[in-house]
C-alpha cells in the first residue's frame, strides 16, 4: 500500500513508457475533425492594409478561413485586462503574430492554403528592447514601488552602482500548444485543451463565443510539460478551435508545430535591473535602491504578478534594512511574456546574488561569508521582509549549513585554490547560494481549491480535483493523500481528468501551489466521507460511533476494539443501503494571507520554501566553455508527500534553471524577428551537461505546520538553486585575474559570454584602487557597471 509519504512512481508511468498515455492531440478523433493552421505576420509591428484569402480556397479541402468578423463575442483573450485580440484587425504587434487561421479537412491542406493567403502590411517602427522602451516611454503599466526605511539616506560606508540584464527563456515543453473542440447541435462545446488553467480557458472561450460558461466544458487529460507556458497562453488556441467549431458546426483541432509554438508564445520575462547598493566594510548590506524593468512584450498577460514576485524576491534570503524597489513593465513588439517556473522570482534573485558577489569581491571577502552575514535572522525586524512579512519559520541557516557540510565546501574550496594556482588555462570555481521562495499566489483569491470524491457501491473511488497534471506528479500525490485519508489502497482510486464540469472555478495549477491547495481540498472531501461512514461502520460493528475510528489498510475499526473490523467496501455498500450519500465536494482556502497591491505590503505568503546548492565548475580559458563538475543540494520540502517525485522536481528544476542561466539564448534580430525558434538554434540541456556527481538531500525532520500532511511546495524553488552555477562560473572567471573586484557576466553565460568576461578580466589592471567611501547622493544610477565605488561625474 502506497500512501502519502511513500516514494512511488508517477501514477501514469506505465502509460508513459508504453506510449499508451493519452495526450490532447492523441485522442481518437471524431469523424469530420477539421485542422487549423495559422498565417504568421512577417513584421514586428505593422498596419494590416488588406487580406486576400481567395487563393487559399484553391487548395482542395479548405473549409473556411477565420477572420475577426466570425467572432460572435469579444475578440479578446486577455487575462488581467482585455488587450489581446484573438485575431488582429488593425495592427500587428509582434513578429509572427497569427493574422489569419485556415480551417481545412486536413492539416496538410490547412498548411498549404495558409501559404497562399496574401496580407498587405504597412510596416511601422517597432520597440524591441527594454532600454528602447525606456527611451521611448513605451510601458504597459505605471511604476509600482515597494519601500522600507530611508534607502537614500541610509548610513552605509560604501556604495556602488550597476545594472544587471537578463534574457528570457522558452518553455520548450515537449508537447506544443494544442486544443480541440467538439460542438453539439444545441450550442454546447466540449473543449480539450493542454491548459494549466481550465477555468480561465472556459471563461475565455465563452467570452469569444459570447456564450455562458455552463455551455462549455474544458477537459485536461494531461500535459506534455507546461512550466507556466500553458497558464494563460493555452487560451488563444482553445478559443480559436472553439471559434472554428462554432462557425462550421464540426469538431476542430489545432496543434502548433515547434517552430510556430516558439514564434507565437510568450517566454520568461527578460529583465533589466539598475541598482545602487550601500554596504559596510564587513559586507553587510545597508541599503538597496533598485529599478526593475520587465519586458512584457506586446500585451499585459500575467506580467503584473510576475513583476510583483520579482520585487518581493529581490531580497532572496537577505535582510536589507533600507530598500526601495521600483517596478515597471515595458511594452515591446515581441511575444507577450508570461509565467515560467519561478514567475519573476528567479529574475529578482539573480540581481541580489550578482550584487552580493560584487560586494564580496570589492571588499576581498569570500562571497559565501558575505552571504551568511546578510541572512535573515533572529526575530522581528532582522527577520522581516521589505513588504512586512515576518519569516516565522526561517530555515535558511539549516539548509545552508547542511549543504555546506554535505558538499565538503571548505575543503574543496582550498583544493580549488590549489588547482587554480597550478593551472593557467583551466580554472575551477565553487559557489554556494541560498533560495527562499514565498509560497501562495500573490493574488489572494487564487488561493482556493475544490475536489470531488465519488464512491461507487463496489467500493471503487473516483477522484477529481481542480489541479492539472503536467508531469509534476500532482495526481500521484493527490491519490496518495486520498488513500492515506480514507485508509484505502491506491488501487481502489482512479483519478479522472481535470474538467470544469466536475470541479468549477479552479485556480491555475501554478505558483507551486497544486499539492498544497488541492491536497487540502481532497482531504476535506475524504474527511466528509469518513464522517458519514463512521456511524455506518459503528453500527455494523455494534459499537458506539462516538469512539475514535481508524480507517486503515482498507479496514475500518474502533481504536477501543481493534480486532473487530469492517472492510471499507462493506461499509460503503451498507451506507448505500442506508441511503447515505457517497459523494463529497471538498474545499480549501489558505488562511491568514493578505496583500495590498497599492503599497506592496502584507502577508502574501502562507510560508516560505528553502533550499541551498553548491556547484563546482571548470572553465576553459581558450574557449569559454565550462563543465559542471559537481552539484550538492539540500532542499526543504517539509514532510515529503512523495520523495521520489520531489527529487524529480528538484533535479529537473535545477537543470532547467541551469539551462536558462548558461545556454538557452533567445535571440531577436534588429527587425524584431525571433531567430531562435527551433531546437537547432535554441539549446536546452541534454544529458551530456549533467554531472555524475549530483547529490540531492531533502531536509529531514522538517514538517510544515498547517500544510497538507506537513509537506511543502516543491515545483518552482529548485529552479533558483541553479544560480549557484552562475556564481561558480563567476568565481572561476575571477581566478583568471589577480585580484578581481567585479565579474560582469552576461546572461545566459554562454561560452562566448564567459570568454569575453575572461578577456576583460585578464586585461584589467591587477592592482585595484582602495575602496573610497562615498555618499549615496554622490552616486547616480548608471547604465553600465563602471561606477564601482567612485562618484559618477
Amino acid at each position, binding site marked *: 500500500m502506497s500512501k502519502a509519504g511513500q516514494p512511488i*512512481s*508517477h501514477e501514469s*508511468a*506505465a502509460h*508513459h*513508457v*508504453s*506510449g499508451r*498515455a493519452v*495526450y490532447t492531440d*492523441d485522442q*481518437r478523433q471524431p469523424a469530420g475533425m477539421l485542422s487549423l493552421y495559422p498565417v504568421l505576420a512577417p513584421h514586428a509591428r505593422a498596419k494590416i492594409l488588406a487580406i486576400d484569402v481567395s487563393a487559399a480556397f484553391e487548395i482542395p479541402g479548405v473549409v473556411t478561413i477565420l477572420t475577426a468578423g466570425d467572432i460572435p463575442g469579444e475578440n479578446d483573450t486577455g487575462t488581467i485586462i482585455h488587450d489581446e485580440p484573438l485575431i488582429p484587425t488593425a495592427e500587428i504587434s509582434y513578429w509572427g503574430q497569427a493574422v489569419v487561421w485556415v480551417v481545412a479537412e486536413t492539416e*496538410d491542406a490547412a498548411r*498549404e492554403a495558409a501559404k497562399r493567403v496574401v496580407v498587405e502590411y504597412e510596416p511601422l517602427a517597432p520597440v524591441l528592447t527594454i532600454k528602447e522602451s525606456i527611451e521611448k516611454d513605451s510601458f504597459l503599466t505605471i511604476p509600482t514601488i515597494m519601500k522600507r526605511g530611508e534607502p537614500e539616506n541610509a548610513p552605509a560606508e560604501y556604495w556602488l552602482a550597476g545594472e544587471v540584464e537578463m534574457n528570457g527563456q522558452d518553455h520548450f*515543453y*515537449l*508537447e506544443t500548444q494544442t486544443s480541440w473542440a467538439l460542438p453539439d447541435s444545441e450550442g454546447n462545446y466540449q473543449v480539450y485543451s493542454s491548459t494549466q488553467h481550465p477555468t480561465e480557458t472556459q471563461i475565455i472561450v465563452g467570452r469569444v463565443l459570447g456564450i455562458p460558461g455552463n455551455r462549455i466544458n474544458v477537459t485536461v487529460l*494531461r*500535459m*506534455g*510539460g*507546461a*512550466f507556466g507556458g500553458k497558464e494563460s497562453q493555452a487560451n488563444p488556441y482553445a478559443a480559436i478551435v472553439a471559434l472554428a467549431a462554432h462557425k462550421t458546426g464540426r469538431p476542430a483541432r489545432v496543434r502548433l*508545430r*515547434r*517552430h510556430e509554438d516558439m514564434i507565437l508564445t510568450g517566454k520568461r520575462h527578460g529583465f533589466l535591473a539598475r541598482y545602487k547598493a550601500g554596504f559596510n566594510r564587513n559586507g553587510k548590506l545597508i541599503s538597496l535602491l533598485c529599478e526593475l524593468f520587465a519586458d512584457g512584450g506586446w500585451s499585459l498577460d500575467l506580467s503584473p504578478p510576475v513583476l510583483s514576485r520579482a520585487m518581493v524576491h529581490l531580497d532572496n534570503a537577505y535582510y536589507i534594512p533600507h530598500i526601495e524597489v521600483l517596478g515597471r513593465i515595458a511594452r515591446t513588439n515581441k511575444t507577450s511574456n508570461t509565467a515560467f517556473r519561478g514567475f519573476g522570482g528567479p529574475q529578482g534573485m539573480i540581481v541580489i546574488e550578482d550584487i552580493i558577489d560584487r560586494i564580496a569581491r570589492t571588499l576581498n571577502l569570500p562571497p559565501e561569508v558575505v552571504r551568511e552575514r546578510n541572512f535573515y535572522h533572529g526575530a522581528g525586524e532582522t527577520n522581516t521582509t521589505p513588504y512586512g512579512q515576518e519569516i516565522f519559520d526561517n530555515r535558511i541557516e539549516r539548509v545552508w549549513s547542511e549543504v555546506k557540510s554535505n558538499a565538503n565546501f571548505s575543503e574543496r574550496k582550498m583544493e580549488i585554490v590549489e588547482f587554480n594556482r597550478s593551472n593557467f*588555462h583551466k580554472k575551477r570555481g565553487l559557489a554556494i547560494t541560498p533560495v527562499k521562495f514565498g509560497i501562495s499566489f500573490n493574488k489572494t483569491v487564487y488561493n482556493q481549491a475544490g475536489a470531488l470524491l465519488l464512491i461507487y457501491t463496489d467500493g471503487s473511488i473516483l477522484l477529481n480535483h481542480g489541479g492539472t497534471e*503536467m*508531469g509534476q*506528479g500532482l495526481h500521484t500525490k493527490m491519490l496518495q493523500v486520498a488513500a492515506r485519508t480514507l485508509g484505502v489502497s491506491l488501487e481502489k482510486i482512479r483519478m479522472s481528468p481535470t474538467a470544469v464540469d466536475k470541479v468549477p472555478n479552479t485556480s491555475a495549477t501554478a505558483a507551486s501551489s497544486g499539492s498544497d491547495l488541492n491536497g487540502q481540498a481532497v482531504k476535506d472531501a475524504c474527511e466528509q466521507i469518513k464522517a458519514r461512514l463512521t456511524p455506518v461502520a459503528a453500527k455494523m460493528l455494534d459499537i458506539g460511533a462516538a469512539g475514535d475510528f481508524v480507517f486503515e489498510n482498507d479496514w475500518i475499526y474502533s481504536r477501543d476494539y481493534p480486532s473487530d473490523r469492517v472492510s471499507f467496501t462493506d461499509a460503503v455498500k451498507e451506507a448505500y443501503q442506508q441511503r447515505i450519500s457517497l459523494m463529497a465536494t471538498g474545499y480549501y482556502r489558505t488562511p491568514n494571507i493578505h496583500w495590498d497591491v497599492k503599497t506592496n505590503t502584507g502577508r502574501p505568503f502562507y510560508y516560505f520554501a528553502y533550499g541551498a546548492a553548491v556547484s563546482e565548475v571548470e572553465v*576553459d580559458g*581558450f*574557449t569559454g*566553455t565550462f*563543465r559542471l563538475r559537481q552539484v550538492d543540494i539540500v532542499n526543504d520540502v517539509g514532510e515529503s508527500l512523495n520523495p521520489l517525485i520531489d*527529487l*524529480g522536481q528538484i*533535479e*529537473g*528544476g*535545477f*537543470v*532547467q534553471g541551469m539551462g536558462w542561466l548558461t*545556454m538557452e*539564448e533567445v535571440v531577436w534580430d534588429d527587425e524584431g524577428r525571433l531567430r531562435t525558434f527551433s*531546437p*537547432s*538554434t535554441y*539549446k*536546452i*540541456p*541534454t*544529458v*551530456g*551537461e*549533467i554531472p555524475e556527481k549530483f547529490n540531492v538531500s531533502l531536509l529531514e525532520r522538517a514538517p510544515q505546520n498547517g500544510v497538507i500532511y506537513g509537506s511543502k511546495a516543491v515545483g518552482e524553488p529548485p529552479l533558483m538553486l541553479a544560480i549557484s552555477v552562475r556564481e561558480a562560473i563567476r568565481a572561476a572567471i575571477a581566478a583568471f585575474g589577480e585580484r578581481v573586484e567585479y565579474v560582469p557576466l552576461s546572461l545566459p553565460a*554562454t*561560452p*562566448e559570454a564567459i*570568454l569575453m568576461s575572461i578577456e576583460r578580466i585578464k586585461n584589467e589592471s591587477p592592482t585595484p584602487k582602495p575602496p573610497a567611501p562615498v555618499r549615496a547622493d554622490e552616486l547616480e544610477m548608471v547604465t553600465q557597471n563602471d561606477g564601482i565605488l567612485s562618484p559618477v561625474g
Partner: protein
Amino acid sequence: MNQNPNKHLTFTINGEKLVFGGLSPTMTLLEFLRGSGRVGTKEGCGDGDCGACTVAIIGESSNGVPCFQAVNSCLIPLGAIAGREIVTVEGIGNGKPHPVQTAMIETAGSQCGYCTPGFVMSMFAAYYDGKITDAAIEGNLCRCTGYLPIRRAAERLIKIEDQFSEKLNVTNLELESFVYETNRQNFYRPTRLKEVLDLLEQFPEAVLVAGATDLGLEFSWHTKEFPILISTENVAELKTLIQTEEFVEIGAAVSLSRIEEKLKGVFLGLDEMLHWFAARQIKNRATVGGNIGTASPIGDLPPVLLSLDAELKLASANGERTILLADFFKGYRETDLRAGEIIVSVKLSKLISADSARRIQQSYKVGKRGTDDISIVAAAFAIDLNRENRIVKARLAYGGVAAIPARARVVEDWLIGKTWNLETVRDAKEQLKNAFTPLTDVRGSADYRKLLTANLFEKFFVEMEAIR
C-alpha cells in the same frame, strides 16, 4: 536493374507487414505513424533535434549483422523504409513491460511522459548493443527530469537475450533495387553505382538522398516538392569501408556511427569530432557523403577531413575522377560537383610526410551547448614534425569562420620550418585572429569566432604538450 515500377510500399511495423498505395514517398515515418493511429510516438520538434519521435529500425551494425538502430522518425521518408522493419514504443511491451520500460518506471524516469517513448526507444536500441551510455540518449531532450533518473534507469539495465535479440538473428538485411511511383513522385533506391549514374543521366533534376538527416527537414516541414528522389543508402559501392596499412577509404553512404566504430583509434581528430558530432539517431543515418555534399560551412566533418588532406572520388556516367577535398568547396553551398556526378568515397592517408618523424593531430568543436549542437567554430589541426621538432607540414582547418570549410593557408605556409613551441604558436595566433572574416549570427559574434580561431590553436598546442 529492377525497373518495374512499384505502386505499393511495403514495410513492417511491430511485426505487422503493411502494404500501402498512393502514399507519398516523402511522407515522414512519423506522419505515417501518427496518422495511422500509432500515437505513442510523439512529435517534439519535427527537426530531428529532440528525439521524441525516436523509433528503432533494424539495420546493419558496423560488423555487418542486423541491429536495432535508433532513428528520428520525423526525418525518415517512407520511401527509405520500404522493405524494412520498424519497432515503435507500442511494439516492445507486449504482454509484459520491456526491461527498459520497467527501469524507467522504477526510477521515475518519466514526469510529463511526452519525451518518454523516444527515450524508451533510444534505450531499447542501445540495450541490444549491450550498454546504455549517455551517448545513447544525448539525442533525446527531456524538459522535466534533468535526466538523472533516466541515467539511473540506464545504469541498472543488463541485456538478457529475448524475442528481440532472436528477431535480429533471423532478419535478412538484403534489399533489392526498388522503384516506387505515385502520381507526383518517383522514388528510386538502387543497389549499384551504375544504376545511380544512369538514373542521374535520365533525370538530371533528380535529388539524391541518403540518410535524410538534412533533406528530411524539407520533408518534415513540407518546404519543397521532390518529384524524383534517388536514395543512395543501399548502393553497394557507396557502402564500403576499406582500411589498409596506408589509407582508409570510406564510401559516401557509410553512416557516421559505422565510421565511429570501425575507425576508432585511427585518427584522433576524427574520433574526437565524431564524439561531438550530433546525436546517436542522426549518426545512425547521416553519411560522410552527405556531410560533404551539402557543403555547409558548419559541417563538422570537413575541417577534420581537410586537416587530413582527404581525397574525394567522384563518379558520373562519363567516368571517375579524384580531387582534393580542399578543392571541392567552391563557395557558400557550392561545390565542384558537375551535373550527373556524385561523391563515391573519401580517402584518407594514414602516412605522415616523408621527412617527418611524427604527427600530432586533434579536432575541436565549440557550440553553445557541449553536446549535440551546431558548432560556432570547429577546428582540426594536423602538424607533422621532424626530429628537430620543426614543422614539416601544417594543416589548420576550420568550420564556421567562412562561407566554406576552409584552411588557414597563409598561416600553414608560415609555420613551415618553425620550431613547434609556444612562441611559434603565439605568433601564429596573432595571424589567425585575422585569417578569416567570420559573420555574426545567432550562434556567436564575429569577434568570438576570431578569438576561437586563434585560441583553439594554442589549446591544441597546450593539450598536445601535456600528453607527451
